């Protein structure tokens, strides 16, 4: 018996996890779909203006993102519970399989089902009353700017929530949000210290100067005379932030979650 990963056991586990969580998944998907239907109904009753495909598209992504964030707290809140978590821990599957199965349900199944459910609801409503819901949401999806970047950012947030869900035993959502705020404040504090203390002289040269700089053109800053050193610092900040947010955070959240699953004591 492969003790780390076995394909058959993993699929059995995914099936089991999904079957057990189907009522919760359907409930969440239904709530967000009904919210859209409720909005449509209220517009119909109170003669409201039409809702554009773009605005509904924004709702679709917002709802999916909210679903991703609440997924771990709803689907796996009991994993580290001293009593309710035992049933899952003694299940004959490896931690790797349990970890991947948990990710499959929280990262793929629940958000995808919510996404699909809203999309279908919107398509039905847009077909019934094109005046209220002009255009189809899926046509707006094609024009949606940077969908992958937004999804990846939502994923990082979700990984943070998954980690918080395994890190805290009580008031998980609240403690995760507070930790996120704390982390944000800590990073902002470090940035302020860097600007006001460490690189004080460099940034003083920027004062009284008026300029606009786009992130995409950040590398051009070196070309401005007298800005060679500060350009390097700004780029350093920017790329450090990118590495921390897009690289270190997700890896740390996932590694931390796996470690907690492996070492959790009951």
């Amino acid at each position: 018996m492969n003790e780390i990963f076995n394909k058959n056991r993993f699929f059995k586990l995914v099936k089991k996890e999904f079957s057990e969580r189907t009522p919760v998944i359907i409930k969440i998907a239904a709530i967000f779909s009904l919210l859209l239907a409720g909005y449509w109904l209220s517009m119909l009753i109170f003669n409201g203006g039409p809702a554009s495909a773009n605005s509904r598209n924004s709702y679709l992504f917002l709802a999916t993102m909210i679903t991703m964030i609440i997924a771990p707290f709803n689907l796996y809140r009991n994993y580290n519970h001293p009593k309710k978590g035992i049933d899952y821990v003694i299940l004959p599957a490896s931690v790797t399989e349990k970890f991947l199965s948990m990710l499959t349900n929280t990262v793929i199944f629940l958000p995808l089902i919510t996404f699909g459910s809203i999309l279908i609801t919107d398509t039905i409503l847009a077909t019934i009353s094109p005046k209220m819901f002009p255009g189809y949401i899926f046509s707006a999806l094609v024009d949606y700017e940077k969908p992958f970047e937004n999804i990846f950012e939502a994923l990082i947030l979700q990984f943070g929530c998954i980690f918080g869900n395994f890190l805290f035993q009580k008031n998980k959502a609240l403690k995760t949000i507070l930790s996120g705020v704390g982390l944000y404040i800590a990073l902002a504090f470090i940035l302020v210290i860097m600007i006001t203390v460490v690189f004080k002289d460099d940034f003083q040269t920027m004062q009284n100067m008026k300029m606009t700089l786009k992130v995409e053109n950040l590398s051009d800053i070196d070309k401005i005379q007298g800005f060679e050193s500060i350009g390097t610092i700004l780029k350093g900040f920017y790329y450090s932030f990118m590495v921390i947010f897009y690289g270190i955070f997700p890896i740390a959240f996932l590694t931390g979650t796996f470690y907690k699953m492996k070492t959790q004591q009951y």
Partner: protein
Amino acid sequence: MVTIENLHFSYSRHLVFKDVSLSLEAGKIYGLLGQNGVGKTTLLKIICGLLKVNSGSCSVMNHEPSKREPGFLSELFYIPEDFVGPDITINNFAKLRGEFYPSYDANKFSRLMTDFEVNGNYKFTKLSFGQQKKAIIAFALATNTRLVLMDEPSNGLDIPSKTQLRRVISQASTDETCIVISTHQVRDLENLIDPIIILDKNGVLLNESIENISRNLCFEFSPVPVEEAIYSEPTLGGYIVAQRNTSGMECKVNIEALFNTVLSNKEVIKDIFKK
């Protein structure tokens, strides 16, 4: 089956086990007794890998439990004292989980559920605590795992169910299986558990078979206190006394009296059973 050597375990500053050594063999139904807080549940959790030992070793079927390897977990089932079932039907629960146990017997599960008079089409959340407990016991025994750990299995069961429990546990016991039952309700499981393990703060006071206990100790009813008794406790119309068995004849063991005898005469008991 289970070998524990020089086990040390503590919850932060609270020491539970200090240098405990213990061995459990296949083919037996162990009764794990002890006062509240001595570590019965902790010991079961260490054996099934829910807790990691601080030092010493715990080996179960040649596995290190705290690694929680699937091969190990598929040979073990732990029934916690207050089992909380998920929000699905019992039959679905058994079907989905049974696939993970190589020796799971669905027919045995149905039979046990019928014996316990629990309807498998109900959700766990719709059942009483006792019925949930019967359902999980039925599932545990249907998995046919080599090691079954039960924490207070008779808690919450009605009188007929306790009788059923005794019957199904004795039927489930084979030469290859080891069942460990932690309980305070010794009368519920009398004539079933053998050997008896009595835990005390920081250690094992007794780990002996009923046969060996009855060869060394005698539990009798006496209308008056007996001076030579190791232990005596008042009961209706007289006293239950525990004495050294000097006749060489086996006496019936009163587990409740044995427990009290051991707790109040630790050194004497150690001396009697020293090997």
